[in-house]
């Protein structure tokens, strides 16, 4: 066994050398639309952007992704993070990787962002894709940044054609999304879009909620939805999650319960699995 491991390590090492050797050729050969050469040392520090960058980047181009992406509760690509270093969103560790492009989500702490920019690192901040339409645009944007337009075009087309195949759902009635601490998601959120795409009317809309905010449990129960989709349980325990097991919530549509999972977290092609999961 140990011999095998050594051999595979040796192969991987050799492959890395080859990739490294091939890199300049690749990078010089495919400039980004702005005319600059494609970045060769990319660090992504946002769970959702990581998952698109991992699908688009050339071998060896993406150095590091966020530690959350390796968490199987949060990320559908958790088992594919082995080739990457995991970062924890700290300026120091990212600077030491000498990146020529950092991709960050708009939740990045302002202090970290200004620190990295002061250190001369190019940081691109992208808003989250919070609708099905925005996913395609996000794929294109990251493809452009990485100089991988062809892969982006392929990924976007594949996603959009599979989405179109799902898009004529039957009307399934009313549903409510309910997360820890009594939060719900309305129509202008990714979770709301997933619900709609699966053929459900969202009761949050009845209450004039289109973003993610608190909906008192009483109001949810009074709307009497046909289905309740509750948030997923994180490891460990909390009082905030206890509301998802409240007897009043269980009493609503007890036979048609569902839970959000890692496919619901991010605007990536994996939302198709979330939509399919509701059927």
């Amino acid at each position, binding site marked *: 066994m140990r011999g095998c491991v050594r051999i595979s390590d040796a192969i991987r090492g050799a492959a890395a050398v080859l990739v490294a050797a091939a890199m300049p050729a690749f990078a010089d050969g495919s400039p980004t639309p702005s005319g600059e050469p494609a970045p060769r040392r990319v660090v992504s520090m946002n769970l959702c952007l990581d998952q698109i960058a991992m699908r688009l980047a050339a071998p060896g181009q993406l150095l590091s992704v966020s530690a959350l992406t390796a968490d199987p509760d949060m990320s559908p690509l958790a088992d594919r993070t082995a080739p990457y270093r995991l970062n924890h969103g700290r300026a120091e560790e990212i600077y030491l990787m000498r990146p020529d492009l950092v991709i960050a989500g708009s939740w990045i702490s302002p202090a970290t962002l200004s620190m990295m920019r002061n250190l001369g690192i190019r940081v691109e901040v992208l808003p989250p894709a919070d609708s099905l339409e925005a996913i395609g645009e996000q794929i294109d944007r990251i493809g452009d940044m990485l100089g991988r337009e062809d892969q982006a075009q392929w990924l976007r087309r594949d996603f959009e054609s599979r989405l179109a195949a799902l898009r004529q759902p039957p009307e399934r009635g009313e549903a409510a999304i309910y997360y820890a601490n*009594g939060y719900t998601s309305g129509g202008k959120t990714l979770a709301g879009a997933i619900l709609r795409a699966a053929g459900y009317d969202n009761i949050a809309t009845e209450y004039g909620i289109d973003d993610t905010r608190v909906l008192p*449990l*009483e109001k949810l129960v009074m709307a009497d939805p046909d289905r309740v989709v509750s948030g997923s349980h994180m490891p460990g325990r909390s009082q905030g999650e206890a509301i998802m097991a409240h007897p009043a919530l269980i009493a609503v549509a007890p036979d048609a319960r569902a839970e959000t999972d890692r496919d619901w977290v991010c605007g990536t092609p994996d939302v198709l699995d979330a939509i399919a999961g509701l059927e």
Partner: protein
Amino acid sequence: MRLIAALSLLVALLFLVSLSLGPAEVGSLRGLQALLFGGDGPLPIVMREIRLPRAILGLLIGGGLGLAGAALQGYLRNPLAEPQLIGVSGMGALGAVIAIQTGLSTAFALGLPLAALAGAALGVAALMALAGPRGGSVTLILAGVAIASLAGAGIALVLNLSPNPYAAAEIMFWLMGSLADRSMSHVWLALPLMVLGSALVLATGRALDALTLGEQAAAALGVSPARLRWQLVAGVALIVGPATAVAGAIGFVGLVVPHILRPWVGARPSRLLPASALGGAAMLLAADIAVRLIVPERDLKLGVLTAIVGAPLFLHLIWKTRAGGRL
């Protein structure tokens, strides 16, 4: 007796108001009808599973805290003794947090209230050992501050060590208390132990009366100091522990209520105990009604309101102590 009748009426009224108040706008009568007789649709669920436990817990926990405060003040002969200020609630909350985070609370049904009970018992026993029956106000408050700070730090540490992303945000719940979205299962967790504790504490009334004459006089009247002490430790822990386990540490109820009611009962502990229980229930029900009226959209913590009422009174008591008043 007139006082007890008046307080009972007030509590009943506040209980009904609490039941008719909620984000879902339903008429009080329709709501009560659904509560009592059930019916179709979601309204009976709202009334029975959401509003009823909230009102019951307000009554139960407020009553328990009022009673525990009056008993502690009678025993320590110090009006500053109050379950939260002296760290007993905090220790109860620490026990609850440890039970939840270690999985003890899911491993067996009574794990949560029993762990909180153990924490509260440790807190009240430590306090009595530190302050002693004849401890002055300064000793009592210093011991209480130390125990409460340690408990608060312990809660924050345990919740921050939790792998759960929501856990750390719950420090406020444990330190300030809330009745939002509690269920009947919480009522069943707390009720039996709290009733037992209340019976123990109410039974100390005569002994506490005797104690007002001084320890020697009390001993001459047949009061056993050791027995009284343990009865109070157990009773207060049985009340405060389970109450904290389901609603967090709610402060000042046990301070304000006995203080307001004391002149009405001729400063006799045996009469103050039941009156304080009713007064505490009224105060907590009123506070829980107020948090729903002030910012209905948010879960304003109960401790915010009880502290706004209670802290000035606390300062007033300290002021009287400094001025050489009899405490």
